[in-house]
């Protein structure tokens, strides 16, 4: 088990390294950078003093170096102008637009992003497990068709539209708070019970919106797996021996069908994180989504790069968790790695 774990963590580290290079490349694709744009602007206004300052900043952030050097400096593998100071040393870079370190700019957003995605994840499992089971056991029944119908709709409705619609009706008929992740008075406040309550109330709409598409997919998958399992002879045997219908489903077939259910986190999580970015923009949640959009628009490339990397790391971490869960659930995977 431990050996398996180590192997998984190693692969994850390698993947993350490649992803970081990719991300750095992508954020440097747009021509120009924040500082050179600023320099051009300042030169147009004839402010030579500021130009000199901006030039100094360019050297300070090693924007005058070739791209691969910039990457290594950003990573912290090579000393920059201030010595080793990169991601590996815990320095997340500098946001040009806010004139602050990235860690200051993002701050609470990171945790809120994790919370939003985590709650969407829990929502997906909490809803799809019972619904998928019922849909499979009563295949062809009312629940089955309703679930399939809602599932298809959830699949086809763009997340952000669902967000708009739910936001509108949720506010109108249920009095759910609109937008944001907490009431204004709690922003920047230290953690407290009242704040938690406020966050929970604000989480309802985003959780449902982000979770719907995933839930639909998950229900379909669980239903298919469970249907396969229910057709097997041992279920008939259990029935013949007089096991009650609940036990007959829950005891063995459901367990066997759960396996792919857990393994699917790997597929689910990237789409979940993507979806949450968009939904956050629509609902103006203080998560990474809006921050990323703003950073991309203003070419604040260290900020954008860090957000992209963080989001990818979140996905990878989720996959790792799913792998570990699977290994616990399924001995074949746990021992599969050892040579015969």
């Amino acid at each position, binding site marked *: 088990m431990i050996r398996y774990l180590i192997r998984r963590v190693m692969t994850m580290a390698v993947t993350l390294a490649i*992803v970081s290079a990719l991300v750095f490349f992508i954020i440097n694709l747009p021509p120009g950078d924040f500082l050179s744009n600023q320099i051009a602007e300042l030169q147009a206004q004839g402010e030579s003093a500021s130009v000199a300052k901006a030039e100094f900043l360019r050297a300070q952030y090693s924007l005058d170096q070739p791209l691969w050097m910039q990457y290594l400096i950003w990573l912290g593998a090579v000393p920059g102008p201030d010595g080793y100071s990169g991601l590996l040393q815990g320095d997340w870079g500098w946001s040009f637009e806010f004139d602050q370190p990235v860690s200051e700019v993002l701050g609470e957003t990171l945790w809120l992003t994790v919370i939003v995605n985590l709650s969407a994840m829990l929502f997906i499992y909490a809803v799809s497990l019972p619904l998928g089971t019922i849909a499979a056991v009563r295949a062809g029944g009312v629940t089955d068709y309703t679930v399939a119908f809602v599932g298809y709709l959830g699949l086809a409705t763009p997340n952000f539209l669902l967000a708009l619609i739910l936001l509108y009706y949720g506010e109108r008929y249920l009095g759910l708070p609109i937008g944001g992740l907490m009431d204004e008075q709690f922003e920047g406040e230290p953690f407290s019970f009242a704040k938690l309550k406020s966050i929970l109330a604000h989480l309802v709409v985003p959780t449902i919106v982000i979770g719907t598409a995933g839930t639909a997919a998950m229900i379909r998958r669980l239903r298919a797996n469970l249907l396969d399992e229910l057709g097997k002879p041992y279920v008939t045997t259990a029935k013949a021996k007089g096991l009650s219908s609940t036990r007959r489903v829950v005891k063995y077939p459901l367990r066997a069908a759960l396996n792919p259910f857990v393994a699917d986190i790997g597929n689910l999580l990237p789409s979940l994180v993507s979806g949450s970015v968009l939904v956050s923009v629509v609902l103006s949640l203080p998560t990474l989504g809006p921050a990323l959009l703003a950073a991309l628009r203003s070419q604040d490339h260290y900020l954008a790069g860090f957000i992209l990397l963080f989001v990818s790391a979140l996905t990878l971490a989720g996959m790792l968790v799913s792998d570990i869960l699977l290994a616990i659930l399924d001995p074949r995977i746990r021992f599969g790695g050892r040579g015969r």
Partner: protein
Amino acid sequence: MKEHGTDMMEGGRAPSPIDPNARYMDGAAYDPDADTDVGGARPDLDMPTGRLIRRRFLKHRLAVVSALFLGFLYLCIPFVELIAPYGANQRDAQHLYAPPQGIHLFHEGSFVGPFVYPTTATADLENFQWTYVEDRETPQKLRFFCLGEPYKFWGLIDGRFHFVCPPEDGTLFLLGADRLGRDVLSRLIYGMRISLTVGLIGITISLLIGVTLGGVAGYFGGWVDAAVQRAIEVIRSLPELPIWLALSAAVPPQWSPVSVFLMISIILGLLDWPGLARAVRSKLLSLREEEFVRAAELIGASPQRIIRTHLIPNFMSHIVVSASLSIPAMILGETALSFLGLGLRPPAVSWGVMLNDAQDLTVIEFYPWVASAMVPVILVVLAFNFLGDGLRDAMDPYT
């Protein structure tokens, strides 16, 4: 076996003897095929595969309806200029946020033919909102097969012919008008051109990369396979939308709408290929081990023939299905990007660009028709999903 018709099963089968010890001779001529015939219980399966697939597909009602619906839309795409009553960016300053006009047939009890009642705007200064009053007195007849707003067909040929035109000195806003007084229905029709082709171009890119890499990985194996597998893992772990956002932010703003459109489609296809590559690879690996491939080899079929007649048909079906299931994801992707303002930009018209106008809640509350682009988006995505499901069931007719 598949070449034989069903008629073969009728004759030549010995009725089961009642007394096992009694001597019995079947009068019918001996049919050597009868002993090897195992398909008797399922005569259906002896039909040619193509016909089986078609028959299976036709049974899936939703898929058939979806296919017809999508076929109709794609047929319309070349002719949007003729179908839309207005131009995509034609503005009517007198009718900002005009509500949908209904088509009527009877005016005061007498049949007039399809017509609309004209509307006039008044500014409601208390709520800062446009209100429209319908003039029930003067019906304005629609014109059919008429000369209307001039356009450049495909951007090349000048034309004025429309299937439907607004009445003389009147308006025809069947789905209302938007913020700038542009006809929502016409924009929907124009937007279809971009929104529906984005998926096609994207899937082409994705197929090219996916089939090539997957094929190479499955065929060569070894370190090539390992490298491709790693690449797939990396790409799959990237959250699509943020990367799409970052990539489309890199598209220079001064590009022409057409190049932006092409670039966006390519970006959409760029992240989609891992699923396909993985499918092609595993399919190739497993197909190579299949007995029918071994049999063909032993008979002496050339590798070319094996690939052409045995391998490709087997995974083409798979590819068609995955393609029809990833097109909707790309359509949604374009919609999302344009909605956020990072995809296509006006004056280009796509469903996402139209939804960009519907971003804020007050607009949706007062003028809900501005958000009507969400209906075709949902319908098209659903149709593609049903079509894909139907195809998936049909492609495997032996189960």
